[in-house]
């Protein structure tokens, strides 16, 4: 007997053929979006974690840090152009020993320290010029030349607290030498280097941090749960029996996560500004972070849900990623106030670049830094999205 459509003698191609569902159908995407939105908004836990939780967080962190303008130990970026001199090294050590500043070395090849700091959103810097050690040595031996030590401090004039701490630290370090001779003066720049026109408060850093938290939590856990639960409850099987395609389903979920992220970000911005007077610059460059961040974390969540055999395992793996990331990436506590040894580990987490990028836009107006962070997030989002799409199976072999 000859059949009209023959089929499956032994497998000849390893992959399932693409569903010939035709081009992406906006009507089906919208139908899936609506039903998912209804389902989501009728779940009290989901509404709490999406809308109420960010609100509570910003209120809580705002209250904790209200009035706080700078931490007791501030990061200080030091370019030492006199690094071979023993006196300079002693000064550098004394500076570190004050405990008021955390020192970060800046390469001697950086020509324009002011520009460098602006590009990296750094508030406090110090340049130790060549001959500094010899000058100080002479001064402490009573060979007063009349000119002050030409050390140059860079401060953010609108962050006077941090600036004061830096100046105090430098003065304390020089006191180390004062005990051996006459007092040493040092030069301050006539004007500040930062272009900021406001005095950043901790809440200004907290708002982008909490937006980063929302970008991580909502898309990632929503997709971990959805993917694992749909698989467990065989909902993918039911949906695959309709004309809805895998691409349409994915798009509707990503659209939903974008909507929720925008809503959470709006709540966080509005609450931070209205309740605590947070100063945030909402520039157009925020948008790519609100788009690519959720795309990355939704893809990551889908990967976890797809690769986990059980829904429970997916939840545990999701938490293993999310918890260290949210605490170490600066979502709740600015990375700059973390211990020096911990700070490099913050840069390991993708969320760091989301938060850093949003802070670069909303706090520092630092476009260069924001674009750098955005480039990294774009690469991560593209890789994770492609991996999620390839590994996610709408049907089984």
């Amino acid at each position: 007997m000859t059949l009209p459509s023959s089929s499956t003698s032994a497998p000849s191609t390893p992959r399932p053929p693409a569903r010939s569902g035709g081009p992406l159908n906006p009507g089906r995407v919208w139908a899936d979006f609506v039903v998912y939105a209804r389902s989501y908004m009728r779940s009290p836990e989901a509404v709490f974690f999406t809308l109420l939780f960010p609100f509570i967080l910003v209120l809580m962190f705002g209250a904790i840090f209200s009035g706080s303008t700078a931490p007791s130990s501030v990061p200080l970026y030091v370019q030492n152009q006199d690094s071979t001199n023993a006196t300079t090294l002693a000064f550098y050590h004394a500076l570190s020993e004050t405990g008021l500043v955390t020192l970060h070395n800046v390469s001697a090849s950086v020509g324009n320290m002011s520009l460098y700091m602006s590009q990296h959103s750094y508030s406090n810097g110090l340049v130790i010029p060549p001959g500094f050690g010899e000058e100080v040595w002479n001064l402490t031996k009573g060979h007063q030349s009349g000119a002050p030590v030409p050390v140059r401090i860079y401060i953010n004039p609108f962050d006077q607290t941090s600036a004061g701490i830096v100046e105090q630290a430098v003065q304390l370090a020089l006191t180390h030498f004062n005990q051996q001779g006459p007092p040493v003066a040092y030069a301050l720049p006539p004007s500040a280097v930062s272009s900021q026109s406001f005095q950043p408060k901790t809440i200004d850093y907290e708002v982008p941090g909490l937006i980063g938290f929302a970008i991580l939590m909502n898309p990632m856990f929503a997709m971990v749960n959805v993917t694992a639960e749909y698989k467990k409850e065989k909902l993918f099987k039911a949906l695959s029996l309709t004309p809805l395609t895998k691409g349409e389903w994915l798009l509707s979920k990503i659209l939903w996560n974008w909507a929720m992220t925008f809503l959470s970000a709006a709540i966080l911005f509005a609450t931070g500004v209205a309740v605590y007077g947070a100063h945030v610059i909402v520039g157009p460059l925020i948008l790519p972070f609100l788009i690519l961040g959720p795309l990355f974390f939704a893809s990551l969540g889908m990967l976890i849900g797809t690769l986990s055999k059980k829904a429970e395992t997916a939840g545990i793996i999701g938490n293993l990623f999310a918890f260290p990331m949210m605490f170490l990436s600066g979502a709740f506590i600015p990375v700059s106030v973390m211990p020096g040894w911990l700070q490099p580990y913050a840069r390991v987490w993708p969320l760091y670049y989301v938060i850093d990028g949003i802070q670069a836009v909303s706090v520092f107006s630092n476009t260069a830094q924001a674009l750098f962070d955005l480039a990294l997030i774009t690469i991560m989002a593209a890789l994770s999205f492609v991996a999620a799409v390839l590994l996610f199976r709408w049907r089984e072999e």
Partner: protein
Amino acid sequence: MSADAVITVEGLAKDYGHLRAVDGIDFRVLRGKVFSFLGPNGAGKTTTVEILEGLRRATSGHLSVLGLDPWKHASELHRKVGVMPQGFRFFDKVTPREAVRYYARLFGVRTDPDALLRRVLLSDKADDTYDKLSGGQKQKLGVALAMVNDPELLFLDEPTTGLDPQARRAVWELLRELKNEGRTIFLTTHYLEEAEQLADWVAILNHGRIVTEGTPTELIEKHGEGPRLVLQASPELVSLLSQQARLGLTIRDGTIQIPIHQKAVLLDALNTVARSGLPWPEINTERDTLENVFISMVGEIDESGEVRGA
């Protein structure tokens, strides 16, 4: 392929690693008929159905569903068939009315949700969310969603599992209506009474192979013991009846069973009983059911479809 066959399967096999779940089966499903696939859990029913629905890929064999290769043309096939998968589940916080609208939008068809829900006896729960529905109501929603696109072929995998007897009979009535409308129904079940009530053709599957197939009547005639007279009797009456060898008497479960091959045999047996003057508390006739056939070929199964003692 016969002109009126909507499903044709030849030499279908499916392996999961070293396990052969379906072992070279052949069958046809004719248009407008109810085809029932019977078998215990693990027999290969759901694997076969999922291959026919385009959800799984066959390891080997030739198959055609509505003239299409289910795996290669799944999308086209899904527009023409309605499927209620085994253990149907839906989104917890969505109501039946919203679910029907959702499916109608996905299929791009106009459907009156209220009329459809009324048809499956679910209109009174149209606005309750799925997680508030009983097991039977959830099954009814599954049947409703399988009908949204007005399919010519319906795959119903265990559609009445978990339903109370009343709800089960209501679903049976609905399936009869669908059949009367000319739709073809591929019904997978482990409820033998359901198959006997609804099916035009039954295939019994065990260990991945079809052990027998035919109309329920044919199967009963072919594999059953035929009609018999059954009576509870005293030892004296048993002794009396045993003397008549041509009656072919057997004693089973404390009752006397006499095969009724001919009317004369039945009359002889009744005459003997009447003339004896001995008491006989109960007398009636019995015939095999599909369940008897199934048990003789596969073994007895429990409510969940597992073979007892397996």
